[in-house]
């Protein structure tokens, strides 16, 4: 039986990765990720985890080491944030294109400049098209659950793609929360031993990553796109199995008090819990407000999202990163595209909030709901606003 513990989320993340019997961990320190891999190095040093811990000289090397180890058939893990993630990006594309089921935790943090170590989603959005499956956690329990789920999905022979679990830097990574930590037997029951399908093997020599001429490159990219789309049912299936075993349910698009809601917030990550508090308050005041949280960022669950959003009159999309000059945040751009593709056109108001660690409060959500309601009732043009910006 697993146990309920009070634990820093980063430590819990490391614990569950340890329970997944990873073979190779390669990492470079960067705030706010560092505690995750520090604790993994402790697990290895204390003999709790039989793995190679490689303290590499940069994030670029961390991902390269994971690619090499995964190509040799190892179960691998790394973790990073922000600038380190940006440096790693070159090899992130390689990992997904080589179909290597690497798992990574990203403690989301703003991108420089100016230098900022605090939380937003700039790094998550930067890596949108690296070809990795990406899930997003709202609290510590979800970090643990999603990491376990990540290995099962990544290594499924129908998927074979790397997976990122996004957790908000500091607001999640450094919190001490009550967490149900599974035990080894439970993890083993959920996660079968890794049987690499594509690996370097002297008896069956294979070349990884050679030149793809114009005659094959397009087909390779199409195959990758199909693999990503094909991952969606497997992701949902693996969450179904998770629910059966652990009793906690996950869906690509999560809803909170959406029944009868005229205005729906759309959020990602830990501010969703603030949004829930705000929705509770507004509902108590008779306001028809609900919340939709995007759990799965890649593959993008467009249909599932539209199915929920189409029931509302207005959608307030809360972005935590910039997409300069598009008059929408990166999440809202995709939401609008999905709505258009499905022939649905609610009133969409986009808010950019919580950049570089700026707090987003219940009052902020109330103000956003009021503005959206106002715009809807007065028929104002759909707007884009950076919340609480000092002019």
């Amino acid at each position, binding site marked *: 039986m697993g146990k309920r513990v009070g634990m820093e989320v980063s430590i819990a993340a490391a614990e569950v990765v340890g329970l997944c019997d990873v073979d190779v961990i390669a990492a470079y320190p960067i705030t706010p990720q560092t505690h995750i891999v*520090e604790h993994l190095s402790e697990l290895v040093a204390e003999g709790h985890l039989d793995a190679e811990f490689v303290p590499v000289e940069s994030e670029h090397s961390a991902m390269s080491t994971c690619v090499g180890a995964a190509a040799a058939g190892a179960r691998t893990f790394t973790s990073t944030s922000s600038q380190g993630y940006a440096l790693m990006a070159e090899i992130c594309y390689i990992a997904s294109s080589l179909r290597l089921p690497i798992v990574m935790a990203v403690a989301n943090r703003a991108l420089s400049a100016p230098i900022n170590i605090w939380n937003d989603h700039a790094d998550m959005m930067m890596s949108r098209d690296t070809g990795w499956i990406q899930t997003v956690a709202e609290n510590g329990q979800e970090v643990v659950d999603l990491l376990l789920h990540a290995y099962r999905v990544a290594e499924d022979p129908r998927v074979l793609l790397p997976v990122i679990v996004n957790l908000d830097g500091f607001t999640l990574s450094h919190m001490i929360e009550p967490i149900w930590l599974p035990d080894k037997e439970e993890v083993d029951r959920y996660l079968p031993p890794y049987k690499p399908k594509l690996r370097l093997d002297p008896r069956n020599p294979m070349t990884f990553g050679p030149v793809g001429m114009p005659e094959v490159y397009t087909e390779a990219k199409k195959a990758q796109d199909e693999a990503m789309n094909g991952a969606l049912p497997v992701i949902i299936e693996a969450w179904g199995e998770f629910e059966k075993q652990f009793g906690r349910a996950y869906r690509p698009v999560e809803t909170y008090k959406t029944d009868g809601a005229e205005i729906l917030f759309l959020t990602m990550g830990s501010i969703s819990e603030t949004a829930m508090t705000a929705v509770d308050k507004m509902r108590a005041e008779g306001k028809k407000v609900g919340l939709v949280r995007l759990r799965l960022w890649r593959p993008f669950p467009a249909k599932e999202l539209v199915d929920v959003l189409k029931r509302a009159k207005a959608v307030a999309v809360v972005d935590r990163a910039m997409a300069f000059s598009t008059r929408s945040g990166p999440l809202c751009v995709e939401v609008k595209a999905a709505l258009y593709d499905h022939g649905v056109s609610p009133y969409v108001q986009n808010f950019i909030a919580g950049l570089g660690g700026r707090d987003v409060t219940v009052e902020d959500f109330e103000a956003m709901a009021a503005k959206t309601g106002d715009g809807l009732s007065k028929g104002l043009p759909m707007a884009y606003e950076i919340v609480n910006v000092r002019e």
Partner: protein
Amino acid sequence: MKKAKASPSHPLDALVRTERIPHIWCPGCGIGTAFSACLMALHTSGLDLDKTVMVSGIGCSGRAAGYTRLDSYHTTHGRAIPFATGMKLAKPELQVIVFSGDGDLFAIGGNHIIHAARRNIDLTVLCVNNLNYGMTGGQVAATTPTLAKTTTTPRGNPEQPFNLPLLVYAAGATYVARWTILHTRDLTQSVQEALHHKGFAFIEVLAPCPTGYGRRNKERPLDTLKLYQERTLIKNGANPAEAFLDFERGVVLGKFVEEQRPTCIEMYDRTCRLPDSAAG
């Protein structure tokens, strides 16, 4: 008699962004001493400070660029040297100083420093070596002594660290020195020499990191300073191959290398530019 008004001042105030003080460095940290030696050398160098730039990478030492009242550039992790290279090439009349740490200059940015030394580009590089990644909480670095404990090597570091003076010398540096923060006067003088040196000048400054490194290796701040006093030997002109950092055997300090070789810009001008007559 009118009581003199107490106005706290410091000889280096003109070179420090005092509004950003107090700094972030921990009690017992050596970076402040290295920083003030660097500023003192600048202050007394006679250089035109309006044409002096300080560049830092990321890490505790990287904060220097933000604390100095010079034109300065706080770059991303590991990239101080290429930023500085670009600056020097664009405006060769600038005096460009790189003040950064061992993790920044020799791990994530290791590739850049060897190529800057190879080119003999006219930079002054101060590397504060505190044997670990201090800012992120004391992880193993490319300079951590073998068997030393860090947060990512709880059972001791299995790897061998770099010998920094040997590495930069082998790569082509034309001025190479090493001091500790206990040898402040030697260090200050060395920085002055490095500032006036034509070509790639490198100074390693050994500095304690009691919070990140010391605690895990049972080395209190004063213990580290005692090592600097008792287990070091000043040996100017020593072969950098002797400069391996091992306090058991003793650590050599001093100016190891001072040579002349055409700088990057001189060679570029000589090789890549057409003579004025040919340019017509």
